[in-house]
């Protein structure tokens, strides 16, 4: 079981690293918003894995809150981009 946790963590950290590259190079703001959203979802996955590994189920509450925050953030960015467009 320990090997499984190590593999899962390595894959998720690798995924966050790859997403970070898109966050840095992303040609426009929208690309960066998408990368940030994916990063938050990856964090939620990591929290779920940690909850299984440590048996600390309070981490699942943290995961839900991160998910809600990520969704509100994405929606807010979408509205912001929309509004910028309207002003032109």
């Amino acid at each position: 079981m320990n090997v499984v946790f190590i593999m899962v963590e390595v894959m998720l950290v690798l995924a966050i690293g790859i997403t970070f590259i898109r966050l840095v190079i992303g040609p426009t703001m929208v690309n960066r918003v998408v990368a940030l959203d994916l990063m938050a979802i990856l964090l939620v996955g990591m929290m779920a894995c940690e909850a299984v590994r440590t048996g600390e189920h309070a981490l699942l509450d943290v995961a839900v809150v991160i998910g809600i925050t990520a969704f509100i953030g994405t929606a807010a960015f979408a509205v912001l981009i929309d509004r910028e467009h309207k002003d032109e």
Partner: protein
Amino acid sequence: MSDLLIAFCLLSGAFFMLVAAIGILKLPDLYQRLHASSKAATLGVALLLLGAALHSSDMGVVARCFMAIVFFILTAPVGAHLITRAAYKHEEPLAKETLSDEWAEDRKKPKCNG
């Protein structure tokens, strides 16, 4: 048996999340990137949370996991749609391989019902 099932859920979930991350780096335009991030990542996080639900014997934890899964399945398409619509209005470029863009004329026009 249960351990095996949990390990399968966690590993396949992490695999799908890695696929989503690779997709967001490699795909050519924003719309395809969103396709990777909204579908593969949702499946990945759902599998990881299912693993956490299987691990626990406490009913409250299982309910919380399923609430989180339902939440992600409900919000991922909504968020992706909001972002795509904003990006399309903002004239985010499409990939060169795109075959048809039926609103191309419409979105170039100045808006009158601002």
